[in-house]
């Protein structure tokens, strides 16, 4: 009896170990991560396919989780590379007050220097796009009231124009988001002009404005959101540059880059090709048409001749 019980236990433990080890880990492969959102999976797939085409083995760790989890995973050495936005450096490195973040190249230089020093992470050259927080307005409202910039929007709201904004709690409360916009452009939204939605998901805020749920006609959005045009919303231009610049760039662990310097030269031209309009179009193929991010990335890289 005792013997059988012990052998049952041994077999169970062995089976457990086999299950837990899972698929044999590709030793030495570059572990590519990304955030769980649409653009995260797009850029992650672009990185994987570019590296693979350049002869570098990769391990797919895409859509790992929220910003916090992916960043922790990179620092802990659980992944080697993932796409992050330059402007987020201000929060990662507790440097929110610095005006450098509002300038694309100064912000990049700053995050590159700080992260290399503090965390041994290397920020590769970012894409010339800005996925910053923005306010998008229904195009019928924008047309009727000639709204193109946040200056126009500020005047319109201050003059008693009808506006109701759908946004995340973070956007409404964080001092560098809506409060910064309001201070710079001279308007103030009352409580009844705001619809606060759970989570930071712009797909939901955009949908709310497009469908005019609860009288909403404006939405928190990101600069490179794909579905904006199809859902007939226009982004109000941040003419005074209130927001930090959020340019997407691959962030890689320094020790890995030292071993595989080719990673930087492979990714550089690809990210240079990803301007705001291109990212919007690619994001739309995923979010609006429901296509697989992997296929969208593959088609783009082929059309540009980055992979064959």
């Amino acid at each position, binding site marked *: 009896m005792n013997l059988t019980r012990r052998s049952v236990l041994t077999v169970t433990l062995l089976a457990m170990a086999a299950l837990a080890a899972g698929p044999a880990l590709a030793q030495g492969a570059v572990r590519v991560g990304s955030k769980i959102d*649409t653009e995260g999976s797009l850029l992650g797939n672009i990185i994987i396919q570019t590296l693979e085409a350049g002869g570098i083995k990769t391990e797919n760790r895409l859509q790992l989780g929220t910003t916090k989890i992916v960043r922790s995973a990179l620092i802990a050495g659980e992944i080697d590379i993932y796409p992050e936005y330059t402007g987020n450096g201000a929060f990662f490195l507790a440097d929110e007050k610095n005006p450098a973040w509002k300038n694309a190249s100064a912000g990049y230089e700053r995050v590159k220097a700080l992260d290399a020093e503090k965390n041994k992470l290397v920020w590769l050259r970012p894409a010339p796009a800005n996925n910053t927080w923005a306010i998008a307005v229904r195009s019928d409202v924008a047309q009727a009231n000639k709204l193109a910039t946040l200056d126009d929007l500020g005047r319109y709201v201050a003059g008693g124009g009808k506006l109701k904004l759908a946004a995340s709690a973070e956007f409404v409360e964080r001092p560098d988001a809506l409060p910064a916009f309001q201070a710079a452009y001279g308007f103030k939204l009352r409580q009844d002009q705001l619809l606060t939605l759970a989570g930071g998901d712009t797909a939901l805020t955009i949908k709310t404005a497009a469908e005019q749920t609860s009288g909403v006609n404006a939405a928190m959005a990101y600069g490179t959101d794909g*579905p904006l045009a199809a859902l007939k919303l226009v982004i109000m231009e941040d003419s005074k540059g209130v927001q930090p610049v959020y340019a997407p760039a691959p962030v890689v662990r320094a020790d890995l880059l030292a071993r595989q310097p080719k990673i930087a030269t492979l990714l550089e031209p690809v990210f240079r090709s990803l301007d705001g309009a291109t990212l919007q179009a690619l994001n739309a193929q995923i979010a609006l048409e429901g296509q697989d991010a992997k296929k969208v990335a593959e088609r783009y890289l082929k059309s540009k001749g980055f992979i064959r």
Partner: protein
Amino acid sequence: MSGAPAAVAGRPAGAARPRRVRQRVLALLLVAALAAAAGLAFLTVAPNRLVTGTGVLLPALWAGAAGAEGAAWPAIWLMALLLPTAALVVAVWLPPSRAVHAAVVMAATALLTSFVALAGAGAAMRAGTLPEIARVSLGGGCWVLALLSWLAAGDALQRLRLPPARHLAAHAAVLLPVVLLLASGALDALSLLKEYENRQDVFHAAGWRHLQIVLTALLPALLIGVPLGVAAARQPRFAAPLFATLNLLQTVPSIALFGLMIAPLATLGEWLPGSGVRGIGLWPAVVALVIYALLPIVHGTAAGLQQVPAAVREAATGMGLTPRQCFWRVDVPLALPVLLAGLRLTSVQLVGLAVVAALIGAGGYGALVFQGLLSSALDLVLLGVLPVVALALAVDAGFTLLEAGLRRWRAEPAV
């Protein structure tokens, strides 16, 4: 179980009246179905996958079909819906018998199949006239009608009182036509199937991964939970703090648990190279699920052992059994049904809980659910949720068979 004879008895005085409703459950389901057909959209049509669609009522499907495919469309589909419905209406007035119940199962199955097939055909017809990016989804009406048909079939099956294995086989046969429709491509115009087409690789990988997560969590949960349950049953002083701790762990949100585990598990992985321990992926997901699974397993084990009558145990001791023999030959067999019920609960719960594993990069069907939630694409959420529901039902059915087998085994005389 004991309620069934009472329902048959009824009021003797009422039996004299003719035209009395004999099958109240079925009558109720039919009335609900009529309301759903008249009031809820059968399909919804949206210009793209993000926005909410406009509803199309069941009768309106015919109005749309008149131009496209001529007279054949209305006639065939009308028959497919009306014949089984008529059969069910007649059955409401018939006295219950095995033949009537069997007929109800078949009519309800036919109706379920017709609703699903009609949704596929209606979607194909609408989609043909719309741009590629437009989506036709199943409306609330279609879901409710299909669900009511399934309930009607299930209720009649229950009344047939088949032995467990045959009951499950019959239930599978009720759902088989829907599976065949899915496989045949007749439903491919529906938004749900378009999401599937776009993410086939992810979907198929998710299935195995989901099972792997559940099984990997279940084994350690059993290995830890059962001894703890035994200890709790034997030492009441130990039980109170144990259950307090387990209850507390149950309330920690999974996402918080994941965030907390990355660094310690990554460090552990560095200490134990080759062990496969990682701060992201399967490991943290499994650890979290084991923590959640402990409560029902420990509880089930302790409750099972506590309900073994003290007199039986005393008798066994009196017959000269050692404490160890008493445990294996008396306690375990008598506690097994309750223990198994706890295991069943835990397994079904784990299938559902494994969805959150996607938040730490462990994959599984949760990956589809969260991608859908984050891009507010409801049909992608459904594509992740439906297989989870199916898996949970399958696990539950598996335990039904296991418990039936156990009962048969126990009924045989001991050696």
